[in-house]
C-alpha cells in the first residue's frame, strides 16, 4: 500500500468509525429502552435507503470530470474539515465541552422513556429514531467513501475501510452492549478534522488548476503540517485562555 493509499484508508476508517459510534449510541438507546425489534427494523430500513442513495450518486460522481469533482469535493472537505478541526481544537484547549457518548446515551434513553409507550405493536418512536440516526450518520459515511474514493480512483479501498470501521464498532457494541464511552472519540475527531482538511487542501488546489510539488507525495507533508498547526493553535488558545483568566482574576 502506497503512502497516499494508507492516508486514504486511515482517513476513511477513522471518519467512518466516529460516525458509527454516534449511530450505535442512538440505536442502543432506543433498543434498550423501547424495542430491539423496531430499532433494528429502523436500522435495516435506513441501510436500504443508504444503498439506494449510494447506487444513485456513486456512478454520477465518478462520471464527473476529475478537476470539477476535485474542486467541489475539495471545497466541501475543507468546509467540513475546518468545522471539525475548529471544534476539536476548542475541545482540546478546554474551551468547549468534550463529546461524551455516555451522556449522549443517557439523554437518548431519557427521551425514549419519556415518549409515549407503544404497547406491543409497532413502535414508531424506536423505528424513527433508529432510522434517522443511522440514515444521517450513514449519509456522512457514504459522502466520505464516495468523495475520497472517487478522487483517489480507489472507491474499493475507501469502501473496505468504511465497512471495516462500521463492523469493528458494531461488533464492539454488540459485545459490550453499552455506549462506547471509552473510545477516544475527541482524539479521533481531531484526527479526522486534520485528515479532511489536508485532503481538502490537496484536492481543492489540484481541482483549481494548480500542481503540487512532488505530486501525490505532497500529502505526506500537508497532513503533518496541518496536524502541527492545529496542535500549535491548541497551545495558543490555552495560553490566551490562561492570560484572560489571570486578568479576570486580578480585575
Amino acid at each position, binding site marked *: 500500500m502506497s503512502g497516499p493509499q494508507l492516508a486514504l484508508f486511515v482517513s476513511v476508517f477513522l471518519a467512518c468509525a466516529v460516525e458509527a459510534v454516534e449511530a450505535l449510541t442512538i440505536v442502543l438507546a432506543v433498543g434498550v429502552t423501547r424495542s430491539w425489534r423496531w430499532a433494528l427494523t429502523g436500522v435495516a430500513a435506513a441501510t436500504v435507503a443508504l444503498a439506494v442513495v449510494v447506487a444513485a450518486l456513486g456512478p454520477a460522481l465518478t462520471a464527473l470530470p476529475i478537476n470539477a469533482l476535485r*474542486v467541489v469535493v475539495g*471545497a466541501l472537505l475543507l*468546509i467540513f474539515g475546518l468545522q471539525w478541526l475548529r471544534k476539536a481544537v476548542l475541545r482540546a484547549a478546554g474551551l468547549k465541552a468534550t463529546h461524551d457518548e455516555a451522556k449522549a446515551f443517557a439523554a437518548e434513553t431519557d427521551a425514549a422513556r419519556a415518549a409515549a409507550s407503544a404497547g406491543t405493536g409497532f413502535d414508531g418512536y424506536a423505528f424513527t429514531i433508529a432510522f434517522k440516526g443511522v440514515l444521517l450518520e450513514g449519509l456522512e459515511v457514504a459522502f466520505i467513501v464516495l468523495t475520497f474514493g472517487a478522487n483517489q480512483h480507489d472507491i474499493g479501498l475507501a469502501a473496505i475501510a468504511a465497512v471495516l470501521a462500521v463492523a469493528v464498532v458494531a461488533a464492539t457494541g454488540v459485545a459490550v452492549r453499552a455506549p462506547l464511552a471509552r473510545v477516544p472519540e475527541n482524539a479521533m475527531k481531531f484526527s479526522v478534522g486534520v485528515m479532511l482538511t489536508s485532503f481538502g487542501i490537496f484536492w*481543492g488546489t489540484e481541482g*483549481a488548476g*494548480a500542481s503540487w510539488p512532488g505530486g501525490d507525495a*505532497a500529502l505526506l507533508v500537508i497532513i503533518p503540517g496541518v496536524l502541527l498547526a492545529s496542535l500549535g493553535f491548541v497551545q495558543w488558545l490555552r495560553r490566551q485562555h490562561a492570560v484572560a483568566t489571570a486578568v479576570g482574576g486580578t480585575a
Partner: protein
Amino acid sequence: MNWLVRAVHAVWEFVVGDDPAIALGVVVALGATALIASAGAAAWWVMPLAVLALLALSLRRAMR
C-alpha cells in the same frame, strides 16, 4: 412550503455549519488559486496559507 424551508435549512446546516465565514473564505481562496494558476504562476501555496488564516480567525471569533 414548510418542508422545503426545513430541507434548505438542513442542507445549509449540513454544508456550511456554524461559521459561514469559513465556507466563504474557502470559496474565495479556491477562486484565487484558480486565478493565479491560470496566469501560469505557482499557486499551490494559496490554500495552505488560506486554511491557516481561516482557522486562526474562526478560533479567535469563538474565543470572544
